[in-house]
C-alpha cells in the first residue's frame, strides 16, 4: 500500500486555460476532500475534459495552480502524480494481453515478478476478469474492455482516480450496470474520484458533489439534491430537466414567497430576502411537478389550457398544454389525455424555482 504521504487529503484547484484568445476554463476554483466523488457535468465543449486533463498533467494550465495536500503539483509530469485515469475509449494497449495491460504500471516500479503477478491477479479478480489474462483487448466486449481499463488504473493504488466519460461508449443497459460497479468500487476501496460526464443521470447517481460547467465557467457546485432541486440559474435548471420557463415580473414578496406574473400566468415561488418587487426574473418548473386534471380540487387550478401534443412514455405521458398564444406548458401525468382536451393546471409553490433572468 501507499505510504501515508502518498495519500490524498485535499486537492485544491484554481486553474485557467486559454487557447489563443479563447478561454476554455475561466479560473475554475475547487476544493476536493479525501473520499469525495466529484463530477464535472456539462455539455460538450464546456471545458470539463480540459479541466480533467489539467489535473492529470496531460496538458498544462495557462494560469493558476494545483495543490495536493497543500503542496503544488502543477509542474509535475503525469507519471509523477500517481493519479489513475480511465479514458473514454479505454485506451487499452492493443499489442498487450489483458494481463500485460493491467500489470503495465506495476512493471515500471521496482517490484518482484511475484509481487506484480499477485497484485495483478487480485485486481483482475476484483473486476471479475479472472480467466481472461491472455486475451487481447480486440477480443473483449466493450464492458470487459472498460473493466480492464479500470483495473489497470486501480492496481497502482492511485491517490486520485480520474474518469473521462468512461461509460459513453457503452450501450444503455451496460451503462447502468457499470455505473453501479464504479460506485461500488469507489466506496469499497475508499477512493477519491473526479468524474467527467455530460449525462445528468450518471452525475446524480454517482456523485457526492456535482460541478456544472458552461463555456469554461463554473455555473453551480453542490450535492446532487441541491443541483437537482434548487438550481440557481437558467442554464443549470435547463440542463437538469426543467422544461417550463416563464419570464416574470415580481409583484410582491411576503413571508418568503414571491409572486410573479409573466407570459399571462401568475406563479408563486420560494424566494430569499434579496428578491425585490419589480425585479425581472425567471420561474421554472419540471413537467413532472405540475399538477393537472383530477390531481387538483375543482376551482384550485392556477390556469387552464388545451392539450396540443401527447407523447406516450410508458407509465405516464408527457403533454404540451397551450395556455395562451405565446405560452405552452409541458407536463407529465399518469392521467389519460387526448388532443384538444381542456385541462386545469396547478404549479405547487414548493416546486417552482426562482432564477435570475439570463
Amino acid at each position, binding site marked *: 500500500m501507499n505510504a501515508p504521504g502518498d495519500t490524498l487529503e485535499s486537492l485544491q484547484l484554481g486553474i485557467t486555460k486559454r487557447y489563443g484568445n479563447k478561454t476554455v476554463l475561466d479560473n475554475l476554483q475547487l476544493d476536493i476532500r479525501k473520499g469525495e466523488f466529484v463530477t464535472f457535468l456539462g455539455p460538450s465543449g464546456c471545458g470539463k475534459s480540459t479541466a480533467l486533463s489539467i489535473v*492529470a498533467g496531460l496538458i498544462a494550465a495557462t494560469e493558476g495552480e494545483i495543490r495536493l495536500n497543500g503542496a503544488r503539483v502543477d509542474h509535475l509530469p503525469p507519471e509523477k502524480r500517481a493519479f489513475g485515469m480511465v479514458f473514454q475509449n479505454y485506451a487499452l494497449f492493443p499489442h498487450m494481453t489483458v494481463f500485460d495491460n493491467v500489470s503495465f504500471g506495476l512493471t515500471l516500479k521496482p517490484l518482484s515478478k511475484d509481487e506484480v503477478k499477485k497484485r495483478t491477479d487480485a485486481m483482475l479478480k476484483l473486476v471479475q476478469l479472472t480467466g481472461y489474462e491472455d486475451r487481447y483487448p480486440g477480443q473483449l466486449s466493450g464492458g470487459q474492455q472498460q473493466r480492464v481499463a479500470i483495473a489497470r488504473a486501480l492496481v497502482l493504488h492511485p491517490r486520485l482516480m480520474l474518469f473521462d466519460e468512461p461509460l459513453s461508449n457503452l450501450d444503455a443497459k451496460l451503462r447502468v450496470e457499470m455505473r453501479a460497479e464504479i460506485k461500488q468500487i469507489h466506496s469499497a476501496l475508499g477512493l477519491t474520484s473526479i468524474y467527467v460526464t455530460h449525462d445528468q443521470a450518471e452525475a446524480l447517481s454517482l456523485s457526492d458533489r456535482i460541478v456544472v460547467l458552461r463555456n469554461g465557467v463554473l455555473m453551480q457546485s453542490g450535492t446532487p439534491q441541491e443541483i437537482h432541486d434548487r438550481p440557481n440559474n437558467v442554464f443549470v435548471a435547463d440542463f437538469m430537466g426543467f422544461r417550463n420557463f416563464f419570464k416574470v415580473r415580481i409583484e410582491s414578496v411576503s413571508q418568503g414567497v414571491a409572486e410573479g406574473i409573466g407570459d399571462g400566468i401568475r406563479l408563486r415561488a420560494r424566494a430569499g430576502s434579496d428578491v425585490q418587487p419589480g425585479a425581472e426574473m425567471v420561474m421554472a418548473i419540471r413537467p413532472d411537478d405540475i399538477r393537472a386534471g383530477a390531481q387538483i380540487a375543482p376551482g384550485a387550478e392556477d390556469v387552464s389550457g388545451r392539450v396540443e401534443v401527447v407523447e406516450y412514455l410508458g407509465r405516464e405521458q408527457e403533454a404540451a398544454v397551450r395556455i395562451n398564444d405565446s405560452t405552452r406548458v409541458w407536463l407529465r401525468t399518469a392521467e389519460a389525455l387526448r388532443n384538444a382536451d381542456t385541462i386545469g393546471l396547478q404549479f405547487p409553490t414548493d416546486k417552482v424555482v426562482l432564477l435570475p433572468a439570463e
Partner: protein
Amino acid sequence: MRAVANDEKSEFDALALFCLLPSLLYVLCMFVYPFLYGVYLSLQPPKIDGFSFANYLAFFSDPYQYSTIWITFSLAIPTTVVVLVLALWLAYGMRRGIFMERTVTTILIMPISLGVILLSEGILGFYGSQGWFNQMLLGLGLIKEPFILTHNYAGVMLALFMQQFPFCFLMLLGYISGIDPSLERSARMLGATPSIVFRRVMLPLIAPGLAIAFALVFVMSFAVFPSAIMLGQPAGTTRTISIAAYQKAFEQYDMSAASAIAVVMGLCQLAALLVIILFRRRLSPAATMGVGKR
C-alpha cells in the same frame, strides 16, 4: 470478426466485368505478360536452341557482373537504415503536428515531385567540390580540402537519401499520427516516462508500419539507376545491377541476357520483401488482432 469468405455474397455481374475489364487487360498485357515473357526470354539465349541457364551462369561467373549485386546491396542497405532511423525520429517528433506543418511537408515533397534527374543535377552543383556546400565549410574553416561528394559512392547515397527520405517520412508520419493519442496519455498516467512510452507502447505499434516502410524504401533503393550514373562512377564503384541490365539491353542489344539480369534484380528485391514479411509476422501477434475500439 470479419465475415467468412462463404458469407460474402458475390456481387460480380456483367457491369462489374465491363468496368474492370479495360484496366485488368491493361495490367495483364503490359505488366504480367512482359514479366513472364522476360523470364522466358532470359532462359532462351540467342545462340542456343531450347531452354538454358546460360545467361544466369554467365552473370554469376563474371565478377564484373555479379559484383553489381554486392554494390547495389551496399548502397541500398545503409541508405534504407539511415532513411528509416531519421524518418522515424522526425515523424515521431512531429506526430502531434508542428509549426507551419503544411509548408514544411510541401518543401519535403519537393524532391519527390522534381524527380531524380533534376535532383541529381542540383546535387552535382550544390555539393560539388566548387559548390556552395563546400564553399561554406571551407569558409567556416571546418575543412581544409573540399569534401568530395560527387562522382562517388557518397554522391549516390546522398541522392538516394534525398529521394527516399521524404517518401518514408510522410508514410511514417501518416502511420504514427493515426495511432490513438490516448494510448500514450494512458501510459503516462500509469507512470511511464516519455522514453518508456516510446519503447513499450509506441514502438511496438509502429513496428508493422516500419517494416513495410523498410521494405518499400529498400526495394526502391535497390533499383537505383539515373543517380548512380550521374552522381556515381557508373563504370566502377557504383555500377549497380540496373546499370548492368541496361547496358546489356541497350548497349549490347542482348535482350535475353538483360532479361536475366532483370530477373536476378527482381529476385533480390523479392527476397528482401520476404524477409521483412516473415519478420513482421513474428513482430507481434496483436498486429493482426484489430486495434480495439477507436
